[in-house]
Each structure stands twice: as structure tokens, then as C-alpha cells.
């Protein structure tokens, strides 16, 4: 006869506000199997937890139900409390009467009745609960970091410096990401490359870091501590060991006029190239789509002229397999870069550019060597209009969120322009200035007060060209909404930051959830901003939401230390929520008939064949066996098993049906 203790939490007014907790405790106390039932203001508080511990000892309870918030919130707390009182933690469960009841229904008998029902159902489940014991699994102490931007770089270095091995995978030919494209960085205006490149080199030289550039993650399987990853190393067509980065091939390449991705199409590059001079690794890549040799089978100038004979036209993609214990996602973001605003004429007028293109114009290493020249005719623009929220905060165009970084970089852009060209006029059309951050507001004020950037509160309605000028039609909502027309030489659109292409596919490969904008979802918006819902996979930077550099670096270090913590021991304990195959006494041994339907259904290849032998060694029966290291406890096999010979610990048939029957 089970002796279950039920503890109903008021959670202040959160539950007691709509649920009559005293009544619940009253009714529940009469349920068969319930030995003890109380309500209390805050169960998660120390006194609350002591209440439980004492009850366990005094009433010598065989099971505990805490009716409070969601188990996702406090199950660990209460299970720990039970353990401390000597009760097997898996005999403790939580009835979710807050998120699933008090918060979603009005104060009424119906709501109280629902709370009672939820508890009653759980009581009959817990009556069937059995003590379970955590499973120990080995931890493969190597981390995989996906994405070589500042986020990925920071995370890699932190993990590597903590003494663990890191595999850093970058899609492009060089690490560095968007930060390497930037000119100066707000609010300090120090040169982006100057602070980034040393880190890039550090990554390249760090003994603990294996760098795979021009590579992509092909597949990921396994689970926390024991992921198996396949990495596709795309053919560079250059032997990285032989190449010494002399650059002859790049100078001699016969194709020269390919818009450079690094310069956002404002500069040109040859078919064999390194994205930018400080690239890491500084080894060229052949762009097969544009290489004459790959198009016509002729040329091969680079091959002939390479002093180290490093060119390999026949090089094939390479698949690299690795075992890793934890993964950091740092795939970053991209910006809206299309004909998104027909009324703004982006893509139609050369002198309307995106913020990222402007960064290249302003960058000393950029196509104009840091002189702001307009793309159409190379003239220095005398009037530049900057438009914030170009795409962001625009539900009509499908992006409702604020891209967060635009207010700051727009202020920076205007400032840089004024610094480089004093007599120039800079206008900023904005809706709100969001400058939350250390020294941020001061920075914006400086742009306005010291550099005399004209801020106009209003959204631009239309831009069109008239005798070589761009006519920007806006309104000033602070000047009784008067229409304002500015004749500009160049317009810079702070286009929205959006999730990278392929983010969705990657998320599905790794089984991490993502939001409707395809940004990866954190496990908890406030309390677990670095974890994903999938154990062992962590987030760093703008792949989770638009972020500036400081935030990205902070989160990256967070992810890094999470990994370090995970790697602090050679093995880790997992919840014993796994499938088990029935065993009974001979001559039956197991009700399993060996159809192995489960094997085909298991997504984790956790089902093995076990031969049951007689003493003489002859095989009596072949039954399924669950590898408790691999099993993740989804229970698909359980539902599928024809003879009901597999069961899921913690969610056994007995428990589930008991719960249903009590409904």
C-alpha cells in the first residue's frame, strides 16, 4: 500500500489566486494511496522544501507529488529535496497546476476541479512509480564549434584555453565572419580588424584547435557527451600543405571581374582567391563556377605558375568524421539584401546601398581604401541619407522584430562620414533610437551634438532618381508630420538582420528548435539563454537573435564555459528515462519474440540483439536489448512493440494507463 504525500503550492497568488488550494488539499487527502496532503505558500522556498523532507521522514512516504509550477521549472529542485530526505528522486513528480491551470483559466470551481483532477491522475501514476538510478555515460571531451565568426572564435579559444580539444568548422574560405568586414566598431570606434585579426591568428595557431574552413557540417547523431559528426570539407582545389600563400596564382588568374562576396559586391576578385588579405588560413580557393578551367577545361594558368605545385583541379570533397561531447552553434546572421523595398529602389539605383556595403566603403581595407565614394561614379557624396529600420519592425513586410544593432551602426556610419568628409551633410531617418548599452546613448548624442548629424524622426516613403540626385521623400513627425524632401547623393539602408540561409536545415540536423524567423531557440528566454532544448548543444551570437559584438562575445564565453563544465568530468550521469526489455525467469527468459520492429524504429540505433544461450552455449532465443548509453528514451519502440515487451522507465504502461484510468 503506497503512502503518497501531496504538497500543493500557492505560488503566492499565482495559483491561490484562481485555485482553491485548501479545498484541493482537502479533496486529495481522501484519494486512495494518499497518506499526507498539505498546501503552502511557496513550496520551492527553503521552509517549503523542509516541509516535504520532514513529511517524508515522519510519514515515511513512498512517493511525493508537488502540485505547483511546471516540472520544467522546479522538478529538479524537488527531486533533489526528496533525495536529501532519502526518497528515490524518481518517486517524486510534479502536477503542473500553474502554467497548465491557474494561469490559463479564470477563478472558478472548474479550475479548482481541474487542479484536483491533474493531481488525482498523477497520484495513480506515482503509485506505480519505481525507484530509478541515474545512468553514467562517458563524455567525449572534444567540442565542435560551428561558425568561425567572432562568436565561434571566442567560444573556441575559451574552450581550448580550458584545456579541451576543439573542432572549428567554417563555411567560408576564411574565419572572421561579418566582424572582419566592419570598418570601425561602436561605441569606441576602434578598428574592427585590428582587434579581430590577432584572435583569428590565435585560433589558427592554438594546439587544441583543429580548424576546418570551407567546410560544412554534414550530419550530427548521438547525444550529449557522445555526438557523432560528419564534416564535409569542400574541395579547395589547392593543397593546403604545399601552398605557401605566395599569391602568384591570384595575380595571374585570367578571370578577374567576379564581384567579391567579402566586399559585398562593391569590389572584384579573381576566380582563385583569398577573401581578404588577413584571411585565416591564408590559402586560396578556386571558385569552380567562375574558373575558366572548370568551365572550358582550358587555362590552368595557376597550375602552371604555382611554385609549389599546390593546385589540385581534381581534388574532391572530403568527409571527416569526429566524436564530440558538446556543440556550440555560432552560425551568425545575414542581412536583408534584396529588392525588399521597391519604393526605396534598392538594386535599381547603384547609390542606394546596405549598411554592410557602407562598412566596406568606410573600411581602410575596402575597395575605396576607406574613402566614402558612391558606387555609381566614384564621386564623394556631399549629402548622405541613412535610413534606420529598413525592413525591421515592419509587419507588413514580415519582419516584426527590432534588429537591435542598426541604431548604433547607423549613428556610427553617419559619424564616420562626417569625420572623413567634414563639409558633408548626414541625415538619419529613424523611428526610435534604441541605444541601450554601456556608452551607447552617449555615442549617439555625440553624433548629434558634436558631429551635427541631422536626425529626422520619420520613415521614408519613397526614393527616386532625378538628374543624378536621389530624392528622398520622408516626413518629420516632430515637425507636425511635415513632408520633407532631401536631395541625396547616396542612401544607406540599415536593412534588417535575418537568420542565415540554411539555418532551418542546420537546426533540423541538430534537433534544436528555432523560431518563426529561423533564429535558433534558447532553452529559456531568461534563465537559460545559452543552452538549447537539446542537451549538449549551446548557442553563441546572432544565430539566436540579432546581437552586437559585445553581446555575442559574452554569450560565446558563456557557451564556452558551459562546455568546459560539461567536460569537467570524464563521465556524466543521465536521467534513467530509457527503454528496457522485459526479462522473466526461464524457460521464457523474455516475452520479446525477436521481431526487431523496435530496431527499425529506433532513431538512435540503441537496440541490439542479445542471444540467450543455454549452458551448453546453444542459442535458445534472440531478443532485443537496449544500449542504455545510446537510448534517449523517446519510447517509439515501446508504442511499436507487438508483444509489449519493451517498456519506458518513468513512463511505463502501468504508469501511463493508471494515469489515464484516473482521468
Amino acid at each position: 500500500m503506497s503512502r503518497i504525500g501531496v504538497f500543493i503550492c500557492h505560488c503566492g497568488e499565482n495559483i491561490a489566486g484562481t485555485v482553491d488550494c485548501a479545498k484541493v488539499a482537502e479533496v486529495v487527502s481522501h484519494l486512495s494511496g494518499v497518506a499526507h496532503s498539505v498546501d503552502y505558500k511557496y513550496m520551492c522556498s527553503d521552509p517549503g522544501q523542509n516541509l516535504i523532507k520532514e513529511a517524508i521522514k515522519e510519514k515515511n512516504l513512498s512517493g511525493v507529488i508537488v502540485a505547483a509550477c511546471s516540472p520544467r521549472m522546479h522538478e529538479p529542485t524537488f527531486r533533489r529535496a526528496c533525495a536529501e530526505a532519502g526518497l528515490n528522486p524518481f518517486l517524486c513528480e510534479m502536477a503542473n497546476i500553474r502554467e497548465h491551470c491557474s494561469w490559463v483559466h479564470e477563478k472558478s470551481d472548474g479550475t479548482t476541479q481541474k487542479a484536483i483532477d491533474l493531481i488525482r491522475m498523477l497520484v495513480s501514476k506515482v503509485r506505480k512509480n519505481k525507484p530509478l538510478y541515474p545512468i553514467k555515460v562517458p563524455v567525449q571531451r572534444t567540442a565542435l564549434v560551428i561558425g568561425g565568426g567572432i562568436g565561434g572564435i571566442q567560444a573556441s579559444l575559451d574552450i581550448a584555453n580550458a584545456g579541451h580539444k576543439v573542432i572549428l568548422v567554417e563555411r567560408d574560405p576564411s574565419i572572421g565572419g561579418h566582424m572582419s568586414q566592419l570598418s570601425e566598431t561602436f561605441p569606441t570606434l576602434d578598428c574592427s580588424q585590428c582587434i579581430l585579426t590577432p584572435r583569428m591568428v590565435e585560433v589558427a595557431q592554438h594546439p587544441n584547435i583543429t580548424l576546418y574552413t570551407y567546410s560544412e557540417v554534414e550530419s550530427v547523431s548521438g547525444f550529449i557527451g557522445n555526438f557523432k559528426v560528419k564534416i564535409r570539407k569542400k574541395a579547395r582545389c589547392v593543397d593546403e600543405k604545399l601552398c605557401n600563400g605566395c599569391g602568384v596564382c591570384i595575380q595571374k588568374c585570367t578571370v578577374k571581374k567576379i564581384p567579391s562576396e567579402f566586399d559585398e559586391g562593391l569590389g572584384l576578385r579573381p576566380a582563385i582567391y583569398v577573401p581578404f588579405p588577413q584571411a585565416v588560413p591564408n590559402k586560396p580557393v578556386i571558385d569552380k563556377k567562375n574558373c575558366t578551367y572548370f568551365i572550358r577545361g582550358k587555362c590552368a594558368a595557376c597550375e602552371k605558375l604555382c611554385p609549389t605545385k599546390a593546385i589540385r583541379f581534381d581534388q574532391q570533397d572530403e568527409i571527416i568524421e569526429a566524436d564530440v561531447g558538446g556543440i556550440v552553434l555560432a552560425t551568425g546572421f545575414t542581412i536583408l539584401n534584396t529588392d525588399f523595398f521597391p519604393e526605396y529602389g534598392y538594386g535599381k539605383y547603384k547609390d542606394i546601398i546596405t549598411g554592410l556595403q557602407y562598412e566596406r566603403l568606410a573600411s581602410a581595407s575596402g575597395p575605396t581604401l576607406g574613402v566614402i565614394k558612391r558606387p555609381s561614379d566614384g564621386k564623394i557624396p556631399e549629402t548622405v541619407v541613412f535610413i534606420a529600420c529598413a525592413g525591421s519592425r515592419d509587419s507588413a513586410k514580415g519582419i516584426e522584430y527590432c534588429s537591435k544593432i542598426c541604431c548604433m551602426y547607423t549613428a556610427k556610419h553617419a559619424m564616420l562620414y562626417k569625420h572623413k568628409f567634414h563639409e558633408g551633410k548626414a541625415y538619419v531617418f529613424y523611428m526610435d533610437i534604441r541605444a541601450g548599452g554601456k556608452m551607447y546613448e552617449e555615442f549617439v548624442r555625440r553624433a548629434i551634438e558634436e558631429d551635427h548629424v541631422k536626425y529626422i524622426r520619420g520613415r521614408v516613403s519613397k526614393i527616386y532618381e532625378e538628374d543624378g540626385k536621389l530624392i528622398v521623400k520622408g516626413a518629420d513627425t516632430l515637425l507636425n508630420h511635415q513632408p520633407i524632401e532631401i536631395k541625396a547623393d547616396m542612401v544607406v539602408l540599415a536593412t534588417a538582420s535575418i537568420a542565415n540561409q540554411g539555418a532551418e536545415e542546420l537546426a533540423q540536423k541538430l534537433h534544436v528548435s528555432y523560431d518563426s524567423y529561423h533564429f535558433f531557440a534558447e532553452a529559456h528566454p531568461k534563465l537559460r539563454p545559452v543552452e538549447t532544448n537539446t542537451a549538449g548543444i549551446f548557442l553563441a551570437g546572432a544565430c539566436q537573435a540579432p546581437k552586437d559584438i559585445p553581446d555575442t562575445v559574452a554569450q560565446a564565453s558563456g557557451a564556452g564555459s558551459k562546455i568546459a563544465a560539461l567536460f569537467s568530468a570524464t563521465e556524466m550521469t543521465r536521467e534513467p528515462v530509457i527503454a528496457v526489455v522485459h526479462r522473466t525467469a526461464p524457460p521464457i527468459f523474455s516475452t520479446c519474440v525477436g521481431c526487431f520492429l523496435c530496431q527499425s524504429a529506433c532513431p538512435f540505433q540503441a537496440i541490439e540483439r542479445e542471444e540467450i544461450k543455454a549452458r551448453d552455449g546453444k542459442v535458445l532465443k534472440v531478443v532485443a536489448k537496449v544500449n542504455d548509453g545510446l537510448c534517449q528514451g523517446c519510447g517509439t519502440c515501446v508504442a511499436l512493440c507487438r508483444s509489449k515487451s519493451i517498456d519506458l522507465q518513468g513512463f511505463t504502461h502501468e504508469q501511463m494507463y493508471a494515469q489515464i484510468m484516473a482521468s
Partner: protein
Amino acid sequence: MSYSLHHSTESNSLLYKVFENTGETVYKCYQCGKCSAGCPLSGDMDYAPSSVLRMIQLEIPELDSKVLSSYSIWLCLTCETCVTRCPQEVDLPKIIDYLRSESIEHKKVNPAAKDIIAFHKTFLDSIRTTGRLYEVGLIAGYKFRTFHLLQDVSVAPKMFLLGKLNPLPHIIKNRSAIEKIFRKSNRAHAGKEAEQ
């Protein structure tokens, strides 16, 4: 200037009525001013489109009545530029159509708008009687209503010569049908306002 702080009770505020009658939520407007920037006439209006929305948002009786007696609501050409570009998808023309009927209903029509209304009224009279627009009748009637007797005397004769103006109206067969439509619609329309 300052407004009395007592806010109008929700149900009689313009904001609420606009929602009731057009389904448009004026709260959605975050005052970016894109409509005022694109509107071909915001320069000629007493309140630019976005200020009209702002005035409605505050639910202050004084402002509500300013809106109804504004010239702006009559100046709108329904060119739909604002709603086409509005990031928050506020259907301003739809709202303004409603504001116009409210303005007439509450006898708040801006004096400067009388020509415009006169024209609309004449227009409707014309089709009410003939079923189709009788342009000559329209112009004549309009002049009669407004006493702009000399307007267009220069163009009109030329248009006759070009055969662009028909001296006689086109009259559709089933005129009673049109008359009915007008009567019923007017009743329905009046009814709708009576409800509030």
C-alpha cells in the same frame, strides 16, 4: 496647449467607433509618419495623416472633434499610397471614409470642404435620377450648388466640339432599381449611425 485629463469613456471614443465600424485598430499605428511622407496632399492638410491617427489614439474628446472637423479627411484622394506602404498595415483610407460619414452625421464638416461634398452630393443625385453619370448635369448641378458659375467656361465648349460632353443624359432602363438601392442604402447607412 493642454487637454483635460479625463479620457472619454471607451465606447464613445472615436478610436473605439473606428474599430467597431471598420475593424481597423488605430493603436497599431506607431507614428512612423510614412503615410504623411508619401501622401500627395499631406502638405495641404491641416493635420497630416499620421497626426490624424495620433489624435484618435489619445481618446481625448477635444481631439476627436478636431479630427471630425478637420479639412484633411475631406482632402484624402483615396490614392491608397499610405496603406500600400504602411509597415503596420493600418487601412487609413478605410478609416477616413468612416470619419467622413461621422463628420457629416455630427454636423462637423469643415467649411473648406463644402465644395468637395457638394460635388459628391451632386454626383450621387445625378446617378440617382439617371442610373449613369450625366456629366453635363453634374457640372451644372455642381455650379448651381456652389455658385462657381464661371469655372470651366473655357473648356466646356471645346469639349462639346470634341464630342466629349453629351448634351443628353444616358438613362438606364431599370431606374426604379437604382432609386430603390439609394433609398435602402441610405436607410441602412442612417441605421448604422443611429445604432451608435
